[in-house]
């Protein structure tokens, strides 16, 4: 009886372990900071000597407008970090739009804009342990440089024209698309919420 009890327990344990290791488990891995926000601000507005943060609490009107444009804010507040030069003039603005994917977790970018709203630079500030190599592969393909010069009313998704999963790899191409959507979100926030 005791032998059967031990064998039965061992069999149950083996079945449980097998089920656990073989079951497909979409799993959001921990967030990884690729670039600190402070560094993204400093590098995005290199000619600034003073920095400020403008915190905008999104009102109903703007929430509705952003949602209708496909950029429904997940957060109640959006922060715009801007820098001024020694003469007091605004030298640029940096914001950190983030996309949260159900299966792979968040992707956040640091979007730096010139005073006229033109994209000055884009860096990826946050990914996850799982998605980091895909993001890095997309970045190595020269993705981020392609956003430079796009106007505030431009279409960031156009940087992927001519690209496909065959040219970039399936997941890097997918994440390049997410990064482009992140940039588009940032531009929408700038147009709608930031007024100087």
């Amino acid at each position, binding site marked *: 009886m*005791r032998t059967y*009890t*031990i064998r039965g*327990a061992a069999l149950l*344990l083996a079945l*449980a*372990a097998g089920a*656990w290791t073989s079951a497909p*488990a979409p*799993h*959001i891995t*921990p*967030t990884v*900071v690729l670039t*600190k*926000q*402070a560094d993204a*601000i*400093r590098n995005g507005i290199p000619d600034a000597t*003073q*920095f*400020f*943060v*403008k*915190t*905008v*609490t*999104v*009102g*109903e*009107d*703007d*929430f509705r407008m952003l949602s209708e444009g496909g950029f429904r804010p997940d957060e*109640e507040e959006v922060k715009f*970090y801007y820098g001024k030069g020694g003469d007091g003039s605004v030298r640029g603005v940096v914001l950190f739009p983030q996309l949260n994917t*159900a299966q792979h977790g968040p992707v956040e970018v640091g979007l730096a804009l010139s005073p006229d709203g033109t994209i000055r630079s884009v860096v990826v500030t946050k990914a996850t342990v799982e998605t980091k190599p895909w993001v890095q592969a997309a970045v190595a393909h020269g993705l981020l440089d392609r956003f430079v010069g796009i106007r505030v009313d431009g279409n960031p998704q156009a940087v992927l024209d001519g690209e496909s999963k065959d040219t970039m790899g399936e997941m890097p191409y997918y994440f390049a698309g997410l990064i482009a959507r992140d940039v588009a979100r940032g531009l929408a926030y700038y147009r709608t*919420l930031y007024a100087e």
Partner: protein
Amino acid sequence: MNGLYSLRNADFSVRLGAVLFVLVLGYSYMFAFLMVREWAGLTPADVAATYVPAAESDRPEMSMSSTEALDLGSMEAEHHTVDTSLLIQDSHIHIMIYAIVAALQTLLILGLEWRPGWRNLVITAAFGFGALDFSGQWLMRFGIGGFAWLTIASGWGMSLVYLTVLVGTLRAAISGPRPAAS
């Protein structure tokens, strides 16, 4: 003999497996501690900040803004937070592994020849602290920040159970078979 078998009198391979299990489990617990310290924090305030959702406020009719000077050098890193989706995923993975670890610890406990009352207490603690850990996290998720202590205490409780099983296993494995009664 109290229990299912005697680890002390078991074959060397059984004792070897038991010792290696508790040592590697301890190795994994070190990283569990580092992960908790890194992502959630060790104080009730930090743990509550991780799990308690921000208070919802009514959205104003028009957007409002405020501006303040910023010192980049003192810009704080964002605190990691766990939303409901991530907590569901964490619960699914961790409670299952807690149960498997507790079951394996129970197999060891059954061979340590402890008194029944003590044996059953440790077995219950092995399963119970894991369940309480996530109960605390869910209570915080429901907005009851005061239960950060439950999650913290449960973590330390699991460590205590581990140390108890570790000491008992090492003693039984190393001391060797009990001499035959003369």
